[in-house]
């Protein structure tokens, strides 16, 4: 966990699947003089302590929401916090205020989707088989030659083997990342949306392979007090590809009088 700045309102950033807190590195400078900013890694991501990982806790996004509340508790935050979440963490950001409504004053949701899977009329964009394929793809890329062979040769499933993986990716631990992937892509939190009472800003990428315009509009229709703002960009990570665009949108949203 990292805290930037010494005064001003609190911003807490939550990274998405496959990333770590470093993904916000180009956004935080815009708020350095005006806010106190909190960055953290979910267990299994970045340099988090793997011993804290609990597969059953993280089998639901509520477990990740508890992580957010734990961070706020550690800082003894009680109210007025703005939550900024990317992708799956947008959903985490929707669940946290349901548990602790007074803690948060606003939510900024970048590329949010309450459910990645298609379900009837709802088009999340993905099927269950896509998740299976993703897990295989992750296995191939995370483990690579050495790490695919190592357990076979050593005849051991010792966790130390997989910890020595290249840290090319933000998420360094394949096992926790598998859990995060499964939870991210199988969770369906649409039923939680009506319980969110905190006002939110939806930052929607115009061309997003993971969270389509339709999903953004669906969220906007389900979230009370939400503002939908379309970023005229392609991709799913505007905070990295167009950090100023994201920072401007957030700044102008926060500048509006509170509701």
């Amino acid at each position, binding site marked *: 966990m990292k805290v930037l700045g010494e005064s001003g309102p609190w911003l807490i950033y939550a990274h998405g*699947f*496959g990333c770590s807190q470093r993904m916000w590195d180009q956004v935080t400078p815009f708020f350095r003089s005006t806010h106190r900013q909190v960055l953290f890694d979910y267990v299994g991501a970045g340099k988090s302590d793997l011993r804290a990982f609990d597969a059953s806790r993280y089998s639901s996004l509520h477990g990740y929401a508890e992580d957010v509340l734990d961070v706020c508790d550690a800082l003894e935050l009680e109210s007025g916090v703005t939550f900024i979440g990317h*992708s799956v963490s947008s959903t985490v950001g929707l669940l946290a205020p349901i548990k602790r409504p007074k803690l948060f004053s606003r939510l900024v949701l970048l590329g949010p989707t309450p459910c990645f899977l298609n379900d009837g009329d709802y088009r999340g964009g993905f099927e269950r088989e896509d998740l299976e394929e993703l897990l295989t*793809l992750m296995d191939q890329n995370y483990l690579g030659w050495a790490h695919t062979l190592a357990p076979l040769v050593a005849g051991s*499933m010792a966790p130390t083997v997989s910890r020595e993986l290249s840290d*090319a990716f933000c998420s360094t631990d394949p096992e926790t990342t598998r859990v995060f992937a499964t939870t991210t892509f199988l969770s369906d939190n649409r039923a939680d949306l009506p319980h969110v009472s905190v006002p939110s800003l939806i930052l929607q990428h115009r061309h997003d*392979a993971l969270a389509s315009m339709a999903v953004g509009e669906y969220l906007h229709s389900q979230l009370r007090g939400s503002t939908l703002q379309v970023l005229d*960009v392609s991709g799913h990570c505007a905070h990295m590809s167009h950090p100023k665009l994201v920072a401007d949108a957030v700044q102008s949203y926060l500048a509006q009088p509170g509701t």
Partner: protein
Amino acid sequence: MSELIDQLPCAALTTDADGKILVSNRELISLVGFESEAALPRQVDDLLPPAGRIFLQTHLWPLLRREGRVREAALSLLSPSGERVPVLLNCSRSAPVNGAPRFVWVFFAAVERSRFELELVDARKRAEVAAAQAESATVFINKIANAMPGMVAYFDKNLHCQFANDVYLQWFGKSPQQMIGMSLRALLGEALFAANEPSVRGALAGTRQALQRSLVKPDGSLGHTLAQYIPDLREGKVQGFCVSESDVTQLKNAEIELEMAASVFANTLDGIMIADVNGIIVSVNPAFTQITGYAAAEAVGQRVNLLSSTRNDTGFAAAMAHDLVQHQRWEGESWARRQDGSVFRQWQRVTTTLAANAQRYVFVFNDVTERWHHEERTRKLALYDALTDLPNRTLLLERLGQLIASTAREERKIAVLFLDLDGFKAVNDTLGHEVGDEVLRAVAGRLVGLVRQTDTVARLGGDEFVVLLDNPASLEEVQRIAGLLVTSVNEPIVRGDVQAQIGASIGIALHPLDGRTPTELLKAADVAMYEAKAAGKNTFRSSKSSLARFPGGIA
């Protein structure tokens, strides 16, 4: 640029920072299977299946933005017909064009490598499953080993412990961490190890060993074990041995108790006879032989009535059987017969017991004949007159009471004859006490000789006798007998050269006319006797009530 990229011997394209495709080459078109460049999508995302898009957005873009390059990322490209074309991707950020960053994407067809990788991934999954199964098999075996009541352990050929179940750990008071790898020598200690060493050597030589040990457990108590060392042979070579050990402490203690019980059985002075449920004798002890004369071989196989005596009344056996069924025990005295036919009095306790699920009767007895005789003598002294051997007043009253009690159940007459000798004092005074005693004994004999066995002749003391007639036919019959008694007493009594002659006065009382209790009847007979004396002695008189009932019956 476009021409240059077309010269490349592999599929390649360029995009802007959002992944919008700027330029692509012919190799890419043919690798993915597009008809023409026009059919190519605008976004690099759209070249990938959904899983690839997620991976691109969540893993590759963050890496590209941070590091500026990606090496050998495994991906699949999506052909127009929906097929996956496995590729390896190299991508790097190139110099900005007009201030905007460019990314160069190069795809290597990786059909072979990808298949091999997928096989490896698959093999890894299989290995994981196999490992999980092996682990669950180990868990299963541990579960069984730990469920066993005995101690189970495995020592390799260097005598280091490789396995120990919970019971084994408990016995030695060790944790699994302490036990595994520990040497047998350190575990047992020098003394015990030395004692076990021959067996250890035997097991390591490939021979199964069985051994018994008594040892002090860590808690300080003495335990006994029965151990087997079972060699572990692989391809004819001993790899180590399995220890299967049973805690036989309880068994051993039971054995000691059994030995003690056997010693008691052999050495006690009480005769012991054990019979099965059918009443067949299965075992006897030496004291049994001592008391009864039957050797063990003669007794075993016989029925339990081997010692039965006809001297016991008929109800005795039934009473014992009843108590055994109801209370599983009987205790009491009875008569028994020895092998030589002699009878002895035994005090006996019989219990039924379950031994190894078989019901047994245990007879414990001792010979109390002497005590019985002693008690009999004491009893006789209390109830009989020492001079004449006739019942005394106490026994007389008891018998009279019994007779009276029996009248409640049946029609029965009772006559009480109170007899006082006439002239006895003179005999005593003139001829001496010894003659007097002789006279009393002679009278007693005559009186007994004149009545039936069912009647009673008692001496109250001095020269007073009482005769009880049980169910006499009539008052006349009673008076006839009274007359005979008087006549009989009058016969001279000769002892050597001394001759004595005496008379007898008799008073008769009848139940219930003259009284309903022994005392009342005796009193009435006594009164009648004095009337006989008053009438001149040496005669008999009936009580007044009897006369009133039987007028004219007077002699």
